């Protein structure tokens, strides 16, 4: 398939990427560093330091770190069961993956989150059920906890998928070898499975952390619109106050955090191919 002309076939995509990926990003920078009159300013960036904005940013960081941690804890056992490391589920594993990833996406995610709103309501289905079992009621709707719940619900699949892929790449005999050399299950996990599946874990972390950090929907729907995350602030600047300059400036700050998180993860993951879904 070596043909020196084939590479020119990339022209349509290169043009597309220039117009719709590169230029728009430059736009964000342009608006972020100018004021309404078009003059250069850094006030849109420094605006992050105001109490309202920094609070939204720190809360978003805090909640998305918690959700990411919960996703890791939930996804690892699940990925172990669904990868070839868990022996029993057999040929059905691919089907399980479809039911975890593809099918839920066909029910609109706004509606799914709204459904959780109803389920988590103080007098909702879950609390009626807990009441039936004489357990204390969950009072989490419209609190940061509900937002974390929604983030975990929406982004858990994006942790599971790269983990399963990474675990499937581990030769089952490598795990057998660790057992054979005397390691118990915990030692085998910590010394062999975890380090060997690290690339998957890292890309799972980026795929959960970034959308959690930047979401405005989950906080809107489950946080009762009183809890503002950085995503909500940016969204409002664009759609309600039409202050594109400030919105862009805050987006640049957000992108800095995204870039830092990606750089941090590439330090762990030398093989960037693991990032692909």
């Amino acid at each position, binding site marked *: 398939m070596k043909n020196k002309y084939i590479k020119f076939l990339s022209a*349509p995509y290169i043009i*597309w990427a220039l117009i719709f*990926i590169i230029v728009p990003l430059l736009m964000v920078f*342009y608006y972020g560093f100018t004021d309404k009159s078009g003059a250069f300013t850094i006030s849109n960036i420094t605006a992050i330091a105001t109490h309202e904005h920094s609070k939204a940013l720190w809360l978003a960081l805090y909640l998305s770190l918690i959700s990411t941690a919960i996703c890791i804890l939930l996804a690892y056992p699940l990925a172990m*069961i669904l990868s070839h490391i868990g022996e029993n589920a057999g040929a059905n594993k691919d*089907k399980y993956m479809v039911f975890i990833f593809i099918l839920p996406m*066909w029910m609109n995610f706004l509606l799914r989150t*709204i459904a959780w709103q109803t389920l988590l309501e103080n007098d909702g289905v879950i609390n009626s059920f807990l009441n039936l079992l004489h357990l204390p009621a969950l009072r989490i709707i419209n609190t940061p906890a509900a937002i974390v719940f929604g983030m975990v619900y929406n982004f858990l699949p994006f942790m599971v998928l790269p983990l399963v892929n990474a675990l499937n790449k581990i030769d089952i005999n490598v795990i057998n070898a660790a057992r054979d050399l005397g390691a118990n299950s915990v030692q085998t996990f910590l010394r062999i499975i975890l380090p060997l599946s690290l690339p998957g874990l890292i890309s799972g972390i980026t795929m959960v952390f970034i959308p959690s950090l930047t979401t405005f*929907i989950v906080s809107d729907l489950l946080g009762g619109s009183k809890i503002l995350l950085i995503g909500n602030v940016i969204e409002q600047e664009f759609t309600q106050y039409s202050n594109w300059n400030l919105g862009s400036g805050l987006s640049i700050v*957000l992108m800095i955090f995204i870039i830092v998180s990606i750089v941090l993860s590439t330090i762990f993951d030398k093989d960037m191919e693991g990032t692909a879904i």
Partner: protein
Amino acid sequence: MMKFIKKFYLVIIFIFLYAPMVTLIVFSFNNTKSRAKWGGFTFKWYAGLFNDSSIIQALINTLTIALLSSLIATLIGTIAALAMNNMKKLSKNILMGVTNIPMLNAEIVTGISLMLLFIFFKYRFGYVTILLAHITFNIPYVILSVAPRLKTLNPNIYEAALDLGANPFKAFFKVVFPDIMPGILSGFLMCFTMSIDDFIITHFTKGAGVDTLSTKIYAQVKKGIDPKMYALSTLIFVTVLVLLILVNYTPNKEKQRKPKGEKAK
């Protein structure tokens, strides 16, 4: 014991993932508009669905945007992946890096950046802007699903086809194309699913009067969701479920081919 724990864990996760689905299906048969109360069983939301032209229009928009954007993205992405396979390492890496931007960047940033682009060039927001935005975030899925296929493709098969007298064009469509087809197909399906489920980017690139299902639902959040939406998403969900079951339980070509391949060993 271990087996039981594994099964139990799977069941818990599935309940977690599917509880909202079940809830929405229940809502779609609820005779009141309120989500808090059960007002008896009804089909009226399903019946009303087909007379609600604004929902039908949003559905048509959603489906046509998904289909068009996936087709165009698949075409551009596949050609780009082919070309990138023949590029020097540096230019390939740069282009791959650019491709990763929409995948890794926050959706909200992608959304506002495209919004600013259209504002800057005074392009009227509407159906076309949504379509362009969807194509943009879909192309990376195609490239990332076709590229690995090309990487593992045995270069000799293309040469063998040439050796056996096929011209480059024929050689490509007869031997290379079938080999990367599964990658193209899964890229396309990924695009279609992503496009259907997208809200954030559509939210920033749509114009007044043009809605997809997502944006229509979002607009209803404050005043209460029209239960016809539950009915519609139940219908979509059940359709996809049935399709999935059909695909999974009818023997496909790959499976039929297998025994032959084994014999050849």
